[in-house]
């Protein structure tokens, strides 16, 4: 089985708002569940109800897999339900000006490519997606570029996260487990697990 994610290739959907929190991505009432199945139907549910023109309501963006977003995307609650719902809606990559940390970490765990780009580039990309949907975007994690038509922008991603996706080693659980002996040894050095005499 190979899980290498070297690039994401799909149509774009623009959402150039700042400080989009995870309560907006998936309202809390949809967290009353014991699996993540079905969450894709409720991505941005409340925003969509209040705004018929919300991009996630528009048929020309249906089937999109690259979300183009603003600053501090995914802030607030740690709920992994947020990237899970985006992923299950179809999103495979998010290009934003910046991400909140927990959201970014959750994307890494799920193999969703979360990359950043400059505001100017994002504004241009979003405008292009809006002008002529469906517009195909290729996010390449090897060259760290995003291209759409004749637009090409450079994107960034912390190297640890990028390498994990490109090499297919984003099953962090497997890697953590491989150190189980070191963990057992480490415990003997932690004062509060050794009656404060370690």
């Amino acid at each position, binding site marked *: 089985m190979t899980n290498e994610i070297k690039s994401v290739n799909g149509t774009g959907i623009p959402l150039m708002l700042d400080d989009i929190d995870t309560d907006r991505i998936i309202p809390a009432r949809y967290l009353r569940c014991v699996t993540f199945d079905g969450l894709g139907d409720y991505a941005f549910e409340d925003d969509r109800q209040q705004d018929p023109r919300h991009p996630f309501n528009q048929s020309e963006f249906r089937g999109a897999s690259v979300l183009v977003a603003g600053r501090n995307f995914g802030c607030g609650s*740690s709920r992994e339900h947020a990237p899970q719902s985006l992923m299950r809606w179809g999103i495979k990559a998010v290009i934003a000006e910046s991400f909140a940390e927990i959201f970014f970490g959750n994307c890494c*765990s799920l193999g969703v490519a979360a990359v950043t780009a400059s505001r100017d580039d994002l504004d241009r990309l979003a405008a292009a997606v809006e002008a002529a949907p469906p517009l195909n975007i290729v996010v390449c994690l090897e060259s760290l570029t995003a291209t759409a038509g004749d637009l090409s922008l450079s994107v960034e991603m912390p190297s640890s996260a990028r390498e994990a996706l490109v090499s297919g080693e984003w099953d962090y659980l497997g890697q953590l487990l491989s150190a189980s002996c070191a963990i057992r040894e480490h415990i003997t050095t932690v004062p*509060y697990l050794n009656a404060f005499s370690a």
Partner: protein
Amino acid sequence: MSDRRNLFNKVWNLHDVRTLPNDQTQLFIGLHLIHEVTSPQAFEILRDRNLKVAYPNQTVATVDHIVPTSDQSRPFQDGLAEKMMSAIERNCDEFGVKLLNLKDGRQGIVHVVGPEQGLTQPGMTIVCGDSHTSTHGAFGAIAIGIGTSNVAQVLATQTMFLSRPKVRRVVVNGNLAPGVYAKDVILYIIQKLGVQGGVGYAYEYAGTTFDAMSMEERMTVCNMSIEGGARCGYINPDEKTVEYLRGRPSVPTGDEFERAAAWWLTLASGDDAEFDDQVVYNAADIEPTVTWGITPAQSVGVSQPLPNVADCDAGEQTLIKEALDFMGLAEGEPVKGTPIDVAFIGSCTNSRMSDLREAARIVEGHKVADSVKAIVVPGSQLVRQQAMQEGLHEVFETAGFEWREAGCSMCLAMNPDKLQGREVCASSSNRNFKGRQGSPTGRTLLMSPAMVAAAAIEGRVADIREFAGATV
């Protein structure tokens, strides 16, 4: 030579199992707190992969997010909530994890219960599938919120991968004026540094203002670190930390306690400790603070007007307009006097004894305005019991507040406590996001519990410093 590492780096190094070539640290986690909302899928991952909980004694569970705060009889009326309850009961049973359940007497909001039980201690690494895990940093721990995949990783290995953040020292010096609380301090800091100012940082809160705070006040401050983008915020342990923990159930006793206390105090950042960044504020500049928008940084001192859009940074104007529209507030108007429909005292930010005592002191002898529905939701069963011993529930009920069972309640409205339609809520919680309190169009004004109490009585946002009868 003195140790110039700050507390964060000392504690991090102590838990570093290994650092990978890509700079990710596999960090050992001393305490893992879990609750019913972000854990069921994690246990499913363990089942799928045929894994056990590696160190079950390092994990403690409670239930808080979905529990009803009025009728708690089982099965819950909400079938989905009942299903989540059954799931955590079954998971804890099957995997050998201690669960502080509803009938236990120690149940409550996970971030209230951890410190109360003495599970939270200085020098630990603490994680929970909840962003307000930063609360536990008040004890000088590295405490961070994680997602559900991480919960599975920590259950299975007691470790997770993290990149070491930078550390910013946030200094506040001086005495808080009467009517200004820990909540106002952290709202002020977030207003100054912005909701993403802390991304990539841990915050060390230092200075005489924090030195003077009680442990409960320190928890209020650290709790909202994440609202400023910092995944972790902490305060150096001192004698108050030690005295708070002495005698708590999960804390050692006798000689072992003395050894623990001595070690805890060595962890504090020294006077010459190094930081990646520092900001300094003056307590005298902070007044009772109220949010008016849809992010916790959109706040003003209660005597101040809302911003004028044209005066704001060009890059902020869209967001400010979006917020004013959603809130139905006009630019340049005073925040004081904004009518409210609901008053909520509770949440992991402000639901502890000192919060309830202060709010009760304000409401005593007054009546909640006719137009306002007011509820008090204690942070834990133990807080609730203590408050009732002190007769606080009678003070609240006489004034017209409802007195509820412990839980998260209207902080995120996953249980039956929800705003209706466009109701405006004066809330002691931590998030004013669109729809946060259960109605997609509901509106939240964050403030201290004392300010919520005053707003409940006046029926509108009031300045606690002018509030009739309150000697602040």
